[in-house]
């Protein structure tokens, strides 16, 4: 087959767990428009960092933070000037039980729960954000014995969705319905001043350098079509 601009390529992409659902839709759109097929791997950025350092064949990283793309660029494993913020994540305190989480988050203070699921603050930005909310509310020490740590935001969702943790912090993108509202259980969205903004960056990795399709995907997250999908999942832009 002749290789040219029009030939279809496969692109290996590492995607932060919280961005799973929107990225699948964006990848579909991208493939329809360009013919290039993104192959998506989902997980925590810490794991991706370790894998990329060890030569994993990823060409782009859709991260959940800014630190990891930064670090990769410094290590010479990513192309610094391709980096930009594609979304700002939103944190939600959620329960499958209707009425358990009130509209002000007072449930955290009155302690009407046994387990509070939180992604490990050391590993996940959403976990760090949840920790910040608990500290700002002055309940961090009081809820210590009730915290169950998840490895990432997907597992935090799993703990809450299965009912094992009565409440827990998840990403809005995980529970938002097609109408842009949370349709199951009860939830509280902490105001933005309770935690630092979750700025999520995308970056082209060294493996994708000089590959037009990979760069096109990185920049595709800026297009109106992608931004509409990102917004529909509750992210800010």
């Amino acid at each position, binding site marked *: 087959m002749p290789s040219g601009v029009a030939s279809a390529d496969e692109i290996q992409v590492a995607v932060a767990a919280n961005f799973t659902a929107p990225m699948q839709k964006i990848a579909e759109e991208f493939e329809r428009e360009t013919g290039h097929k993104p192959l998506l791997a989902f997980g*925590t950025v*810490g*794991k991706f*960092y*370790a894998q990329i350092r060890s030569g994993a064949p990823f060409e782009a990283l859709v991260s959940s933070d800014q630190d990891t793309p930064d670090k990769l660029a410094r290590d010479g494993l990513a192309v610094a000037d391709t980096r930009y913020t594609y979304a700002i994540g939103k944190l939600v305190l959620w329960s499958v039980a209707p009425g358990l989480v009130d509209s002000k988050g007072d449930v955290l203070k009155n302690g009407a729960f*046994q*387990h509070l*699921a939180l992604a*490990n603050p*050391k*590993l996940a930005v959403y976990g760090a954000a949840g920790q910040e909310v608990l500290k700002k509310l002055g309940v961090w020490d009081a809820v210590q014995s009730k*915290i*169950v*740590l*998840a*490895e990432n935001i997907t*597992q935090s969702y*799993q*703990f809450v969705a*299965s*009912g*094992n*943790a009565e409440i827990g912090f998840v990403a809005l993108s995980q529970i938002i319905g097609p109408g842009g509202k949370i349709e199951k259980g009860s939830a509280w969205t902490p105001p933005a001043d309770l935690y630092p903004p979750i700025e999520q960056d995308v970056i082209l990795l060294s493996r994708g350098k000089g590959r037009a399709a990979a760069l096109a995907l990185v920049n595709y997250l800026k297009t109106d079509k992608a931004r509409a999908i990102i917004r529909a999942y509750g992210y800010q832009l």
Partner: protein
Amino acid sequence: MPTAEDFAAIWLTLKLATMVTALLLLLGTPIAWWLARTKSWLKGPVGAVVALPLVLPPTVIGFYMLLAMGPYGPLGKLTSLLGLQALPFTFQGIVIASVCYSMPFVVQPIQNAFEAIGERPLEAAATLRASPLDAFFTIALPLARPGFVTAAIIGFAHTIGEFGVVLMIGGNIPNKTRLVSVQIYDHVEAMDYTRAHWLAGGMLIFSFLVLLGLYTRRKEKGDV
């Protein structure tokens, strides 16, 4: 150097493996005895259920345990009916999960040892008017002793190496469910490779020594 948290994880892991091994020897022996002796058609299905953890990915076991132990699952409903604490995110929970998960590693060596004894010593005991229980304790158990030692060592070592199931139902709680394997995973994910090396290297040496002991012993004694 390993920190206090790392030592807490090591201590918890040893505690878990000891309890699980003791429970499995108690529970596994009658199961192994029955499997070795029975002519029932149930032998196949029961043996298959016991062996399931050998082939199932830990994610499958962890996923179903999380659902079964949760408030909407059968086990979860049972514990709440009995007024007991729910099992996920507790030490008891990972003990039960580990017992299921390590079951074949204990039952199978014991079963093999029982089968190797054959009918004759027990028939001889019966002609001497030993009750079946008597024959079990004075003939079968001593003869199967090497199988028990193998079972205990592998059961212990396998429980120490457990990761996937505990990760899914444990909730990573210090002194309750944060085992060494989980702690290593956290260190790696947090890019703290120095601490990861201490624990991971320790696990490697420990596992090698256990297996070395097991295989050297086998060679000397010609065990099953």
